[in-house]
């Protein structure tokens, strides 16, 4: 199967999966009894504010919350016309947030791409740290290098992220003048992208990247070490040594290539765990990512907001797995030629 055909095929399955995920997301959000508006109506009734009740009733109609669940779903996706015609996710309308009383698009705004940015940076950090350390630890297994890297790795795993964040902020500020909190200087918020803004974001990103990436990096390092040790015992490594290759060249060309597969496959899994795992960190560090928004939305049953955020995370995950699948096909001929007659 050619790579192009496979990519198209994989893209198709991704769309189908996304559709299935949307149904699940919608169902799960609607599982708890009531919704944001009916909760509010009950509250208003109890306190005797009938004007508010009328408005809430109006909103219920406006957003078709009075219809059957499957109809609500189809309207949300944009497969059925709502009170205002076809206007759902497919058409680019992300819905209305009741909690913030603003369109979802305005609330998530910048935080969408900032989330992607922070997490991609963290993933790059994970690979950049874990790869060399894991390989060295395996090549020098049972020496002080191995033990030191394992010790540092476990330290990284065991330290609570927010604690690490506070420590890094403190010392970063003290010695390197790194700004504390947020992902950019407040003056750039809502501003169009400019050179100054990019600079501000890069400086602000240093600590969050390290904090979010550390745990992942040490876990990945340990696994890479174990995988490499497995591969180092294989006969093809001996063949390479018997050829007269130098150890570093041999390590990089043979066992690392084979041991690397699971890590390529991991890209897809890293994304969602980073998004959901970094909620606490984002709150502590005041990052304008999507994690804290999701938390608020879920707590208040703000269904369009939480639905949109969950869909966004799902999309990230699916894109991640698609990328890793395509990379695997490129990297591993055994997968590429599966089913081809010899």
């Amino acid at each position, binding site marked *: *199967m050619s790579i192009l055909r496979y990519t198209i095929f994989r893209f198709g399955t991704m769309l189908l999966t996304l559709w299935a995920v949307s149904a699940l997301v919608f169902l799960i959000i609607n599982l708890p009894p009531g919704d944001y508006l009916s909760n509010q109506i009950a509250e208003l009734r109890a306190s005797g504010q009938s004007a508010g009740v009328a408005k809430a009733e109006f909103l219920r109609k406006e957003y078709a919350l009075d219809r059957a669940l499957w109809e609500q779903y189809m309207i949300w996706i944009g497969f059925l016309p709502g009170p205002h015609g076809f206007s759902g996710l497919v058409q680019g309308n992300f819905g209305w947030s009741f909690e913030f009383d603003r369109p979802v698009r305005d609330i998530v705004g910048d935080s969408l791409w900032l989330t992607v940015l922070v997490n991609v940076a963290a993933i790059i950090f994970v690979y950049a740290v874990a790869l060399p350390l894991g390989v060295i630890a395996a090549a020098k297994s049972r020496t002080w290098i191995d033990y030191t890297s394992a010790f540092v790795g476990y330290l990284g795993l065991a330290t609570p992220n927010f604690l690490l964040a506070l420590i890094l902020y403190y010392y970063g500020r003290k010695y390197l003048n790194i700004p504390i909190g947020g992902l950019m200087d407040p003056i750039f918020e809502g501003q169009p992208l400019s050179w100054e803004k990019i600079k501000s974001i890069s400086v602000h990103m240093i600590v969050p990247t390290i904090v979010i990436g550390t745990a992942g990096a040490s876990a990945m390092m340990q696994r890479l070490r174990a995988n490499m040790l497995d591969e180092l015992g*294989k*006969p*093809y490594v*001996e*063949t*390479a*040594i*018997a*050829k*007269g*290759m*130098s150890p570093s060249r041999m390590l990089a*060309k*043979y066992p690392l*290539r*084979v041991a690397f597969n699971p890590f390529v496959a991991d890209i897809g899994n890293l994304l969602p765990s980073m998004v959901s795992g970094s909620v606490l960190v984002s709150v502590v560090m005041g990052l304008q990512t999507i994690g804290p928004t999701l938390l608020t939305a879920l707590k208040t049953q703000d269904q369009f907001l939480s639905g949109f955020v969950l869909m966004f995370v799902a999309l990230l995950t699916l894109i991640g797995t698609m990328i890793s699948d395509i990379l695997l096909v490129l*990297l*591993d*001929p*055994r997968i590429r*030629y*599966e*089913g*081809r*007659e*010899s």
Partner: protein
Amino acid sequence: MRPLLSVENLSIGFGKGDAVVRDVSFDVNPGETLAIVGESGSGKTVTCRAVLRILPRTAQIRTGSVTLNTDDGVYDLTKLSERQLRDVRGNQVSMIFQEPMRSLSPLHRIGNQVSEVLWLHRGNSESEAKRLVLETFDRVGFPDPERAYRSYPFELSGGMRQRAMIAMAMVAKPDLLIADEPTTALDVTTQAQVLGLIKELQKETGMAMILVTHDLGVVANMAEKVVVMHKGRVMESGAAEPLLKSPAHPYTRQLFDAAPTIPANPKLAPPLPEEDLILEIKNVSKTYKMRAGSAWRPDVLIHACRGIDLNLPRGKTLAIVGESGSGKTTAARIALGAEPPDPGGEVWFRPDPAREPIAVHNMSRSVRTAFQREAQMVFQDPYSSLSPRMRILDTMTEPLEVHGIGTRAEQRDRATEMLKQVGLNPDMLKRFPHAFSGGQRQRLSIARAMMLDPRLIVCDEPTSALDVSVQEQILQLLEDIRDEMNLSYLFISHDLAVVARIADEVAVMRQGLVVEQAPPETLFYNPKHPYTKALIAAQPTPDIERPINLKLVAQGAGSPDSWPEAFRFSGEVIPSLIELEPGHKVRSHV
């Protein structure tokens, strides 16, 4: 003349333990082949790897020297730095390893892996290296060197991969080749061809070789000098011919006695009785569907077995012999009811001549349970067929528990009895499998198969993972048990010499078809089919007067459309099995 390589007083040990190789010395002259023979644990592999210092990290060379004497100078390889040694590896001295399946990286093209040697040692450009590699590929017998250059290892058969390994070892024109069991993992006909190829290349290039092997037959065919090792020491060494003709050391003689051979002067044997059959396989075929890679291409049908008819008389041994992929294991699985045959095939099993036979091809659940009590299996690999987490006692009594037979105490007694039967000490019941050697484990597997007191045992290459002397003991044990308890065996093997000893009837399979069938004596006396002839010719015998006949091997081991016209399969036209003389059938036209 100074020897090319001389090893003197070499001792090697692991960690703080005792030396595993002690005081080993030998010389290899230019262009000469030296064979190191021994069983597992003899230290032969460690010795040959010590030459290039490709050893596990905990191993140390304790004493001795390894002197290499080439045109470039004289070095003691044990004293060279790692960097200097790198220039020797793959350049002046190269190696071939045992498992061609795993000795090549699965992720890199063959051409890349072979060319690498030239990049490293000659600094050749990519195109220059490619030209040389293609020449070598042509020389080692790749029909299409360009294609081989582009292939990945998993696209090639075992024999072709070993040819690629040979090409890799040869491409830099080394003075010495170290081959560590280079053909052990290959089919016997492929082994013969690869050995022939190595010999030819050696004649052409004047390269010397150290051949490490456990097979005296291979030694007789290849070596000029022999070193026999046992438990880390050299037992006997010297020129091949006198040593093989009249071994002086008792250990060497013991190895000779244990080596299974095809009888030198076979006679015609009477046919087997046709009545009282315990197992009857009638018209059994098995077709697997391999799904094509894309939806537009049709699925590929694989005919694992085609129209097999076999009879096993009670108390006898029927052997199915063939190379990997010949369908012999599929046939055995169908005989055991592990897989159903294609519609139309029948397998009848008569545990008791007086009772109605069991239709193995179509069993209900309860019939299957009853059937399993009567038919058991002994597997190929004694290392993976016993659970490492279960004590021997539990492994042994498990079949009884599954079938709900006896109390705990009775089960225990039965296990004790069976251990004695296979020549093990009942004290061993409390141990775990890792405490046993390969031969002991295979005895345990046999004991486990015997626990239910079956009538039929299917043995799937039960000795192919064992040393020759242990193999001999296991075959003896199987024979004794068979005669004592009136068992019947269906014996699967790729090794005609093993089969020659134990079987009463042999069916030779190729590409899912039985091509020839007869009692083993008859088969060796009067082989008719080119493939049978190739199998017999390819069998290395430890008799220096009977070298492998490569011409016969080449004639029969090729694809069925290259066989002489009388035997050829062309497309769907397959000759039928005809009876030449009583009890001797061959698949041929007319």
